[in-house]
């Protein structure tokens, strides 16, 4: 093909031996150059579709994505996004009516696969031998994948977009490749600048080998875009340059340096002594200001101009420190909230003795937010959202350092400071692991299971070790100092707790008998679900991220979502979720009654407890605090108190104690009823009726699978809709026999 693009008639893919699919982004396309293309497609193709009984396919996954998009609040979005969101809603209405008249088939899908892209690929691979297929999509990645698949299988699989006139526009191989390269460069440059998200990372990881294969398969020339290394000029520098200075990253693959050795020196300067300084660009002399403090490794003096000077003590003037600080200084890194060395300091004889760094403000986490008593004293007005802001501030810095291939190493609550404006400061930069210089110190509580027992100074930490410390720190910020592996029944051996990986906080339907006493479980209960998921999977030995921990970028994305969730009154329906110390579990649903406690007057202290038998909420008469300490007013009859019997056990769902004889599969009668009842909050995307039981949901969520979205996806059928007109004959086919996904696809392909 010599032309950059080819125009085809999409109607050819509506012939009996061919199939046409549409991806989500086509429905949400807002480009005026292509406006009206979908409408023209249906106008051109409807006769053929109906004649051949071969509707255009919009898989359930795509319908699901459109549904999700259409529910977003468009008011705060850009004009373009808001138009796209409106388009999604319009598309759903269109799909409904088009499927009723047989132009669209939207009941095909496989909900076990979270990605529509993969679904298309699976489908195309499976049926490439039987049919010629075409996918309409704007997604370059999937276009490349399908094109490559067609090449590999030697079959006709076409990917393209619609023109204004409803024609199928197909890119030539070279053009598709060049567009792929530009997409890659775009994501890569965001990562290089440190503003990348998880999506950028995954796109880069997918595109790099894909483009390489693509180029080889089609014998294409190298694109003008450079695939190797960091992109020289970022296309869109998003990060304000004032916060984090962009410098060349350090080498990530350096081998560990030979063991550290002490350096000789004539004297260590003190307050009032003249010293020499040398930054990346300049040098000079100055006099050490007043002594500000003494630490485990040296003394800190005022350096004037919002700087301080650390002078190491005699045991810490070492070769590693000198070389590491020279490396950091030489790179000229300046980043807000990080006390990175800016100049090497030498004594009067020119010997290395310390360094200059910016002054940190605020106080150590350990003395401010890692203890309820101190926290309430220091920051009495702070809410959960403020703690989430602290996590974000911390993560932005960690993300930047990681992009520079710096490993912080000894992340602990004494190396992090917080000021009353929620700015996080990272101190102790001279302990960071840079190139082959290890971080010689560590804190067991933040040490990964793999690193425990090793000598900090004699091993380089891996990024996984680092990400363990990052996860632990985030958990301890949100939980104001509680350790993730805290549980009952320990003998105080923290190393053992980390090694066993028994994260005891209640997660979904798991047993929680080891949860610590006190309000910690309520704090945990209110954490935003996606963050909770990440915590659980990172800390629990059976979690999916236990061996491959979330990166700073992933956490950043999750915590930013947590932040907007807390600010969104509709999504965050429980007013107690923004409390730092909630005193009850999170409310079940938006309609759960929430009341102040009549006993002690605490706000929102009582939330209704759903009772499936009565299909109503039971509202306790007093809050948890009043129940535990005895009411200040009149003691009610205590209807919920169970008689104490020796053979008692905790219900695995609600963890209240019950006589064993009342439990069924570890659940109390109420929870058994609940487990077997349909979740009223989840509606089938086809019939808009509840369709899946709580127990069944638990089965998916404990396996970290997406919960299915329709009757069809769990191999049940939609109940007949009482108000809507009777379904057409072809639609009722789908209702009769619950068939497996592939069986349904097959029968459809065979013309049923």
């Amino acid at each position, binding site marked *: 093909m010599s032309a950059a693009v080819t125009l085809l008639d999409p109607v050819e893919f509506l012939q009996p031996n061919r199939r046409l699919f549409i991806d989500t982004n086509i429905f949400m396309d807002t480009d005026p150059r292509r406006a009206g293309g979908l409408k023209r497609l249906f106008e051109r193709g409807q006769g053929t579709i109906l004649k051949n009984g071969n509707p255009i396919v919009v898989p359930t996954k795509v319908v699901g994505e459109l549904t999700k998009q259409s529910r977003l609040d468009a008011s705060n979005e850009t004009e373009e996004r808001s138009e796209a969101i409106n388009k999604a809603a319009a598309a759903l209405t269109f799909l409904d009516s088009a499927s009723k008249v047989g132009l669209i088939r939207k009941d095909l899908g496989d909900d076990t696969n979270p990605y529509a892209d993969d679904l298309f690929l699976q489908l195309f691979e499976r049926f490439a031998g039987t049919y010629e297929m075409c996918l309409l999509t704007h997604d370059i990645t999937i276009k490349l994948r399908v094109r490559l698949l067609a090449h590999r299988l030697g079959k006709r699989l076409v990917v393209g977009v619609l023109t204004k006139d409803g024609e199928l526009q197909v890119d030539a191989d070279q053009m598709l490749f060049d567009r792929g390269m530009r997409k890659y460069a775009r994501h890569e440059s965001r990562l290089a600048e440190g503003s990348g998200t998880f999506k950028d990372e995954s796109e880069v990881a997918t595109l790099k080998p894909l483009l390489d294969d693509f180029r080889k398969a089609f014998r294409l020339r190298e694109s003008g875009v450079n695939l190797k290394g960091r992109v020289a000029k970022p296309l869109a520098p998003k990060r304000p340059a004032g916060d984090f200075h962009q410098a060349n990253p350090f080498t990530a693959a350096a081998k560990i340096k030979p063991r550290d050795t002490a350096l000789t020196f004539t004297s260590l300067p003190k307050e009032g002594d003249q010293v020499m300084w040398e930054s990346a660009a300049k040098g000079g002399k100055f006099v050490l200001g007043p002594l500000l403090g003494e630490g485990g490794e040296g003394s800190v003096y005022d350096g004037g101009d919002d700087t301080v000077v650390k002078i190491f003590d005699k045991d810490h003037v070492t070769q590693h420190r000198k070389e590491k600080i020279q490396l950091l200084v030489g790179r000229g890194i300046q980043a807000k909230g990080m006390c990175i060395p800016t100049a090497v300091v030498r004594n009067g004889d020119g010997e290395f003795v310390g360094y200059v760094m910016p002054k940190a403000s605020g106080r150590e986490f350990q003395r401010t937010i890692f203890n309820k008593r101190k926290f309430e004293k220091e920051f009495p007005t702070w809410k959960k959202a403020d703690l989430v802001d602290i996590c974000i501030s911390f993560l932005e810095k960690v993300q930047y350092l990681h992009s520079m291939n710096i490993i912080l190493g000894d992340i602990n609550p004494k190396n992090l400071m917080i000021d009353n404006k929620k700015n996080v400061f990272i101190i102790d930069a001279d302990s960071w692991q840079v190139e082959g210089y290890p971080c010689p110190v560590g*804190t067991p509580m933040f040490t990964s299971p793999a690193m425990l027992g090793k000598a900090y100074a004699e091993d380089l930490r891996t990024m996984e070790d680092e990400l363990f410390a990052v996860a632990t720190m985030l958990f301890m910020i949100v939980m104001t100092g509680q350790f993730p592996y805290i549980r009952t029944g320990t003998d105080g*051996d923290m190393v053992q707790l980390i090694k066993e990986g028994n994260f005891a906080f209640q997660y979904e339907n798991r047993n929680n008998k080891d949860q*610590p*006493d*006190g309000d910690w479980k309520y704090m945990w209960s209110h954490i935003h679900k996606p963050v909770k998921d990440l915590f659980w999977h990172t800390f629990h030995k059976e979690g999916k991220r236990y061996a491959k921990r979330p990166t700073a970028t992933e956490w950043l994305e999750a915590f930013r979502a947590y932040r907007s969730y807390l600010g969104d009154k509709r999504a965050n329906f429980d007013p107690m979720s923004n409390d730092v110390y909630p005193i009850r579990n999170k409310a079940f649903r938006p309609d759960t009654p929430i009341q102040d406690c009549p006993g002690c007057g605490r706000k929102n202290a009582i939330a209704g407890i759903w009772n499936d038998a009565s299909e109503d909420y039971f509202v306790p008469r007093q809050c948890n605090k009043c129940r535990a300490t005895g009411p200040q007013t009149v003691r009610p009859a205590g209807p919920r108190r169970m008689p104490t019997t020796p053979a008692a056990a905790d219900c695995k769902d609600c963890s209240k104690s019950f006589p064993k004889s009342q439990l069924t599969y570890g659940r109390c009668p109420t929870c058994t009823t609940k487990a077997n009842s349909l979740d009223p909050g989840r509606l089938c995307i086809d019939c808009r009726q509840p369709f899946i039981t709580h127990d069944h949901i638990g089965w998916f969520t404990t396996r970290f699978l997406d919960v299915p979205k329709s009757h069809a996806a769990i191999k049940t059928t939609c109940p007949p809709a009482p108000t809507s007109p009777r379904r057409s004959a072809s639609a009722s086919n789908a209702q009769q026999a619950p068939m497996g996904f592939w069986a349904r696809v097959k029968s459809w392909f065979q013309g049923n």
Partner: protein
Amino acid sequence: MARLDIGADDLIDNPTPRVPVSLCLDTSSSMGGSPIQELVRGVNLFYDAIDEDDDAHDSAEINIVEFNSSAALVHDFASIERLQRITSLAANGLTAMGAGVNLALDSLEKRKATYSGSGVLYYQPWLVLMTDGAPTDNIESAVKRVVDLVDAKKLTVFPIGIGAGADMKTLARFSPHRPPLRLDGLKFKEFFEWLSKSVARVSRSTPGDTVKLDLEGLAGWAEL
């Protein structure tokens, strides 16, 4: 006497790992007069120092066991916030050291069980044994328990002799790895200052870490 309120919230709301310290004190008749007064002053000073230290404040939990003709709990474990200072201790009777140490160990075990049952992290406990004489009861079981715990790294013990009459040989049996210390005169103040600093030092470490005690700091009050 010391008074305290037992509060469960106090125990579980604080995520800081605890250092339980049991002060096992000889209040036999020979301690009467200035020794017991100095001891009370020293203990209160210890409490003050713990209270003032940012780290030890949240970590240390202290109880006092006294022994004379029998053993008794002066007050059970509590955080420093809940501890009132002791006003006096009465000195009379014999020196039931075995019973005193056993009671102190029992109280430590009970406290550890409380930590474990509530989900509170802790450091292995400390036992401070102070006497000015020799035991008048059987100490064999108490010695064995202490030695076993110390060997298993589940207890740090500080046997302290008060004055010239203290039976250092007996005290040595309670401390398999470190010789007992004799208090220089009635320098309780210096000893308790040192003790509070050591508790603070431990509470700045992580449970499971080996904490180096600052033994040089002992020179002021002890003669070996």
